[in-house]
């Protein structure tokens, strides 16, 4: 399964961010918060997270059957930043924590590492057992802004049925049909 800009738009729409994309047929809620991602004059803070770093993190977190694209993470994080301006800075800080740790552990940037090495960096940082906390330090901040953020994006954007047979996880406006569908064995 490939995650594209369209999946990111679906996620953002579920979160109430209105995103104007030509030909987009994302599910439409009755209301929307925040602004428009393609709004002229929409600016982003200089302190941006590197897209390749976010792709590398998402590739590590998501099951291997999922192909992550740069447009997916880029659309998603910029959409989120419309509602919360400090967001990009926080994501950038969280990624910097991971990247610094990668340098410390292996002398390489996180993006240059193999899948197994990236796992090790995250594990060593304590992200697996950390309590997510936007105001916390180190691993808690990473758990909140990278780990859970990217997983939330996945749950509300992807077609989870492709990974496990759950058609409409909470947070996703997937309508009122799936809860009735028979389960195929």
């Amino acid at each position: 399964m490939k995650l594209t800009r369209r999946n990111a738009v679906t996620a953002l729409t579920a979160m109430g961010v209105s995103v104007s994309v030509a030909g987009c047929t994302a599910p439409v809620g009755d209301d929307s918060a925040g602004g428009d991602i393609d709004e002229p004059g929409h600016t982003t803070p200089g302190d941006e997270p590197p897209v390749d770093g976010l792709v590398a993190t998402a590739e590590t977190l998501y099951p291997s059957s999922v192909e992550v694209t740069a447009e997916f993470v880029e659309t998603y994080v910029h959409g989120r930043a419309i509602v919360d301006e400090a967001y990009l800075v926080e994501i950038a800080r969280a990624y910097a924590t991971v990247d610094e740790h990668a340098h410390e552990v292996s002398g390489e940037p996180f993006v240059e590492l193999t899948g197994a090495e990236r796992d090790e960096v995250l594990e060593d940082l304590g992200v697996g057992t950390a309590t997510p906390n936007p105001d916390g330090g180190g691993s808690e901040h990473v758990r909140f802004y990278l780990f859970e953020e990217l997983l939330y994006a996945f749950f509300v954007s992807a077609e989870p049925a492709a990974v496990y047979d759950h058609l409409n996880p909470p947070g996703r406006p997937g309508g009122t049909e799936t809860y009735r569908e028979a389960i195929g064995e």
Partner: protein
Amino acid sequence: MSAERTPEDDADVCVIGSGPGGALVAADLAARGYSVVILEAGRWFDPDERHVQMELALRNGYDGLEVWEMGGERDEYLTLEYDVPLNTERVKGVGGTTLHWGAVTPRLHEEDFEMETRYGLARDWPLEYDDLRPYYAAAERELGVSGDEDNPFAPPRSEPYPMEGFPASQADSVYARGCEDVGVRMHTAPHAIASEPYDGRSPCQGYGTCIPVCPSGAKYSADVHVRKAEADGARVIDRAQVHRLEHDSTGETLERAHYTTPDGTEYEQAADAFVVACGAIETPRLLLLSASDAHPDGLANSSGQVGRNLMGHPYVTTVAALEERTRQNEIGFTTSISHEFYDHEEVPTSFQFEFSNVAEYAPMEIVSFTEEWGDDLFEPFDTHYGQVGSIVTAVEQLPDPDNRVTLAGSRTDNHGRPIPMVDWHLGERELETAAFAQEVAADILTAIDGEVVWQSDPETVGMGAHHMGTTRMGTDPDESVVSPELRAHDLENLYISSASTFVTGGAVNPTLTIAALALKVADHVDGRL
């Protein structure tokens, strides 16, 4: 939605509290042309915030308080023998607890109004089901109820539900096999959730987070009627905590409501009629806080009944590991229930079964405590996700004068007023009913090859989110607080719009009845003015 919190000049009606009890009265009277002011302790929550609130609930090990900003000094209370969690079970905000509720909206049954006559239990209501029937129909239209007429135990109705109901779930079809085996009849539940566009509301989008927040607005919340009241000229003063009601020199007519705003400033709102709609905990508290020389035991309390007969619906749960998968968390609400045990002959008190569509942790919840990622992230889903079922039971609690709300003396809230003290326990009857219900639930789940893995302990479940009974209705002023017109026996212009006026609570969710009574209150206030 102005931040201006000074009182309104020349108000005809002052409504205190903006949950369904207050909002429906306010909207109805404003539409009839009265000058209405609503005083609400909580704040306005903008519908645009709801996606952010949903995310908060899904992502961060939600503790039941954060999303609606409950807790803290304003909301303090004390409990005695039983620890009764209150602040996860109510909301202070424009729209009240319906911002958070599950929106299941059955009517009370005919027998609930006649418990003494039929079974020698508790007291009869001074009303019959037929008196409320037109108000129930109107309440269903106001709240926008979706439902199907398939409940063989439901009281008679003369019109269809405003919208078609939500069909039973895949999980229900599994539970249904067990029910059939055990001889329990299942049926669908009515909901104040739009199944089609209704009254400017979106149909349900399937976000699945109905409790605690619906981002689409498909689920009714009483801010809908606060907005309608505003559109008809009513004024809403949010973050206005009313701490005393003041009467004239005769002690028979209320003149003013005293309220405090966030900066500690106190104001007085005058009006010709007052409607107290603060829920069954804060309503008696406000009356007790308003004691005076003419009403030394608290306002409207010559009967001594203010605060007494507090009832809830203790909810007990039976969870089973199943042999087969069920679709869990694909929708946020219960689609099927059973009133098979709406009965006082086989069981000491009635109970309602609710068959869960959210028996499993939601995927995001599982992930939020996972220590794995990558291909291991979905391991819990691959092996047994959805192989779980649960039956939740709402148990009827009979009124007991010793279950009561009083004032906690020296313990005070953010503005220095005594906080409520809740002394509540379950009686033998309710415990016996709960034990029986747990047995039947276990039989149903075992009949579908489930292995019961957990049952809640009725002794510790608390009274749940349905608070009722603390200013009960009756014809005898020595035994009750309000008349069948919902007016205080002791004061000519004080009305109460709340489940606090319920004489008994049945085993069904109370809010449709609160709404029906609110529309009745509006008729009586109109008649008086």
